[in-house]
């Protein structure tokens, strides 16, 4: 029983990371029409930036500065690379570009910080278990869950309540008409891309405190993130959250009962969902409906 709880909780944490990654990637796929294979790479960038900045800014400073700097990197990447994809609807171009970008990011991180893992120190009061029975629920893990919930909530509030957010949602449906109504859609797409990338950076910083940092840590996450989006339904942000939590939990629980299948189970879930409901769990409904 305890083992199931342990793995279930681990799975939930894992799922929360997938959900956060899937939210950003979903935004980028929907509005920028780019399938961003480098999304895991930006997560790594966020993690290493936090690692590098923590000695100067402390944990909390790094927690803010990491995502912000990753987002700024996202703006540059959008401005000088991704923007040229908009006139080329063939997805081959976006796959080539972002796949190449992912390799460049991975190797850059490796050449700056080395190939081995490095530890990331979190405040010690966050690192102790909240109870003795449930030793695996450390304060930090509770903190990670809260932080991800907060970030997702802030994103939904932004998209629902701010004018800029409303325009992003409108643009996801029909970018041309948004442009014809006077909205600078170049800016809209740039900011949207940066938000998605900053969320990946935030996931990276949080992950830095749970996992060992390594240049390839994004690779394990990116496939699961795509699966989360497909399971939840492409175009539905709630679906991304749901899909992420679901596959994280499934992988966690499976590793308690049948460890060898824990990597495969997410693909099995994806296959079942696609057979029963080809548009994903929340796919037929647009954003927020």
């Amino acid at each position, binding site marked *: 029983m305890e083992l199931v709880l342990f793995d279930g909780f681990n799975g939930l944490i894992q799922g929360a990371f997938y959900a956060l990654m899937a939210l950003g990637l979903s935004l980028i796929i929907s509005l920028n029409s780019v399938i961003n294979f480098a999304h895991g790479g930006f997560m790594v960038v966020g993690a290493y930036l936090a690692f590098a900045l923590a000695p100067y800014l402390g944990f909390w400073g790094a927690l803010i500065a990491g995502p912000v700097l990753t987002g700024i990197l996202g703006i540059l990447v959008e401005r000088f690379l991704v923007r040229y994809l908009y006139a080329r609807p063939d997805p081959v171009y976006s796959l080539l570009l972002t796949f190449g970008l992912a390799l460049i990011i991975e190797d850059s991180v490796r050449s700056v910080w080395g190939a081995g893992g490095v530890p990331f120190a979190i405040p010690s009061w966050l690192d102790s278990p909240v109870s003795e029975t449930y030793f695996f629920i450390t304060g930090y893990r509770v903190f990670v869950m809260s932080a991800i919930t907060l970030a997702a909530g802030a994103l939904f509030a932004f998209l629902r309540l701010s004018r800029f957010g409303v*325009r992003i949602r409108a643009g996801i449906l029909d970018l*041309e008409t948004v442009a*014809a109504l006077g909205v600078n859609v170049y800016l809209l797409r740039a900011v949207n891309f940066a938000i998605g990338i900053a969320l990946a950076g935030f996931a990276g910083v949080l992950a830095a405190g749970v996992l060992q940092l390594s240049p390839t840590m994004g690779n394990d996450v990116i496939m699961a993130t795509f699966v989360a989006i497909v399971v939840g339904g492409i175009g539905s942000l709630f679906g991304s959250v749901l899909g992420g939590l679901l596959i994280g939990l499934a992988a966690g629980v499976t590793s308690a009962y049948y460890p060898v299948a824990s990597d495969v189970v997410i693909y099995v879930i994806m296959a079942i969902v696609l057979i029963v409901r080809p548009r994903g769990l929340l796919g037929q409904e647009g954003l927020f409906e």
Partner: protein
Amino acid sequence: MSAVLRAQDLHTYYGKSHILHGVSIEVAEGELVTLLGRNGAGKTTTLRSLVGLTPARQGRVELFGHDTTHWPAHKISRLGVGYVPEGRKIFSNLTVLENLSVPVSRPGRWTIERIFELFPNLGERRSSWGRQLSGGEQEMLAIARALLINPKLLLLDEPSQGLAPLLVREVFRTISSMRKEGISILLVEQNARFGLDVADRVYVMNDGEVVHSGCARELAQDEEQVRAFAGAESRAAVG
């Protein structure tokens, strides 16, 4: 009267297909001009070239004295060009109120309050999702959205399409009242009777070219020619 819109010799393509073959159109200040033509004549493509969605590869678009041929759509809109696209294109995943917060408003008399006065239905349904609206309400929303720009020039693409006769009349009443406010209007219409009724001047397109231009009243009286120009749909309307 000075021209608010002057398009000269537009050649527009979708990929490799050459759609507009030298279209020239003018709208003077305060004028209501109707663009008639059969299905596939190039009316929508002409409007898209004017608002920057499918820029012309050759020719020149001048709006309020600016050469806007290659301007991005949002810059053209911000000059004061309102666009009501074919098929309305309202945002079905947004509420009515959210739909109305998408346009970038120029300073002017049109505010959301005033929109709800003019279209009380929209006010009542402000929290409904766009996709829950009837065709008539969607058309009003699309017009309202364009008015919030506070346009000096309004381009409407078949606003009466698919609406019941009573609603068609309401749409045309709205268009006439916009015009009385001093907004210049370019109207694409398949319904020749209404289109000619409200217009000062008319252009008729066929196969990507303007094949007739002149006074709307004169053309309206020549049923034979209306039939020849505007195709089957005008027959019932004119006859």
